């Protein structure tokens, strides 16, 4: 147990498969996971995360810690896009700034489950209701991003596409991946309350298979991330810096809040990872629909090509040591 935690994180199958995927691109192997197979694993992971989270929430009930944590999660997903927007406006127009900022306010479910796997390998406890925080942080960031466009954008956008509140809410909550996660959470909750035998029967699919499916998906994510990386060059060093600095900054704020909420180390890490991760599923899809003026290569390449690998490989153990350092400090 004395190995360097970064090394230990890297030597877990999910991260190794991620690296294998990335290296295959580096070496120009023709390894490829053709569409729509990645979609299959992505749908599966969202369904399983939601379902298991719903069960956990039903089991643990709404303890003292649940509501403040969920509240803080929502708060962070509202504040991060605002901060990010202000930073990005130094270099980018309203459209691009809002789209990128929204991505960093939202979350990456796969980063979250990588953190869970890390905690399990370190034998550190965490609570199932953190999936609730995950689910609640997807939509607010989208809403903030779209409101920023609505109010800060020049007034000459094509009329036919004026952004109505209803459209904003639609994109935020009915986006395929948000919807699947939220509704699977509800299914898990309902199953746990009224049909416990259903849980046992789902377990091989949503439980036992999960780790392997995560590895397979991360193999693809490694390929995709490495393919994206070169495109970052066109984005310039400002954005590259942002893609590393912003997660670290968000993680730092996150760990302070976790301390304020007296979260245990497991929950604290998950909270920090939610703050630090950036969305490459729900937000890009929503932004492409509603803010076509933003360059998709900016918000996709940063989140997928840089922030995601950074978090998976280095970020999680760094955040863990941040948590271990700051949480036990004498009270503020």
């Amino acid at each position, binding site marked *: 147990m004395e190995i360097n935690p970064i090394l230990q994180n890297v030597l877990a199958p999910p991260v190794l498969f991620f690296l294998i995927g990335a290296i295959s691109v580096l070496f120009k192997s023709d390894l490829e996971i*053709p*569409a*729509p197979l*990645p*979609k299959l*694993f*992505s749908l599966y992971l969202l369904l399983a995360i939601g379902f298991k989270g719903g069960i956990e929430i039903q089991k643990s009930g709404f303890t003292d810690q649940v509501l403040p944590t969920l509240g803080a999660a929502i708060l962070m997903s509202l504040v991060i896009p605002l901060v990010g927007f202000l930073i990005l406006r130094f270099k980018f127009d309203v459209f691009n700034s809002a789209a990128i900022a929204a991505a960093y306010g939202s979350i990456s479910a796969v980063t979250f489950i990588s953190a869970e796997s890390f905690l399990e390998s370190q034998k550190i406890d965490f609570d199932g209701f953190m999936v609730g925080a995950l689910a609640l942080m997807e939509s607010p960031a989208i809403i903030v991003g779209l409101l920023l466009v609505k109010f800060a954008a020049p007034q000459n956008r*094509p009329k*036919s*596409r004026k952004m109505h509140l209803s459209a904003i809410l639609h994109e935020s909550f009915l*986006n*395929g*991946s948000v919807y699947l996660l939220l509704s699977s959470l509800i299914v898990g909750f309902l199953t746990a309350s009224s049909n416990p035998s259903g849980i046992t029967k789902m377990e091989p699919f949503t439980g036992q298979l999960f780790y392997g499916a995560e590895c397979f998906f991360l193999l*693809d994510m490694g*390929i*995709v991330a490495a*393919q994206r990386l070169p495109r970052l060059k066109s984005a310039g060093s400002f954005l590259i810096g942002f893609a590393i600095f912003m997660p670290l900054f968000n993680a730092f704020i996150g760990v302070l809040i976790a301390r304020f909420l007296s979260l245990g180390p497991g929950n604290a890490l998950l909270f920090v990872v939610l703050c630090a991760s950036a969305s*490459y*599923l*729900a937000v*890009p*899809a929503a932004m*492409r*629909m509603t803010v*076509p003026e933003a*360059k*998709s*290569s900016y918000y*996709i390449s940063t989140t*997928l090509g840089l922030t995601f690998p950074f978090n998976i490989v280095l970020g999680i153990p760094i955040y863990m040591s941040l948590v271990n350092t700051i949480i036990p400090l004498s009270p503020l």
Partner: protein
Amino acid sequence: MKRLDLIFSERELDAIIKTLEKADVPGYTVMKHATGRGPERVVTEDMEFTGFGSNVHVIVFCEQEIIDKMRDNIRDDLSYYGGVAYISEATPL
């Protein structure tokens, strides 16, 4: 008869089909999973799993008048999200 080729983001498919139907096209064909590059954007297959979608290629065989009817609407749709539209001659077999 004319052949109209439309290539654009999958996201706009419903809107374009509505436009086609309003102009009473005799039929149309849709091919999904197209990728490519235009003046504005690169669209690659790996974006599909993100829910981002890729391009569609729509083929319509129809008379010139029908094309005239829907020209403005299609241009409108394509100007917002990008995409291309070309017409060529075609004779029924």
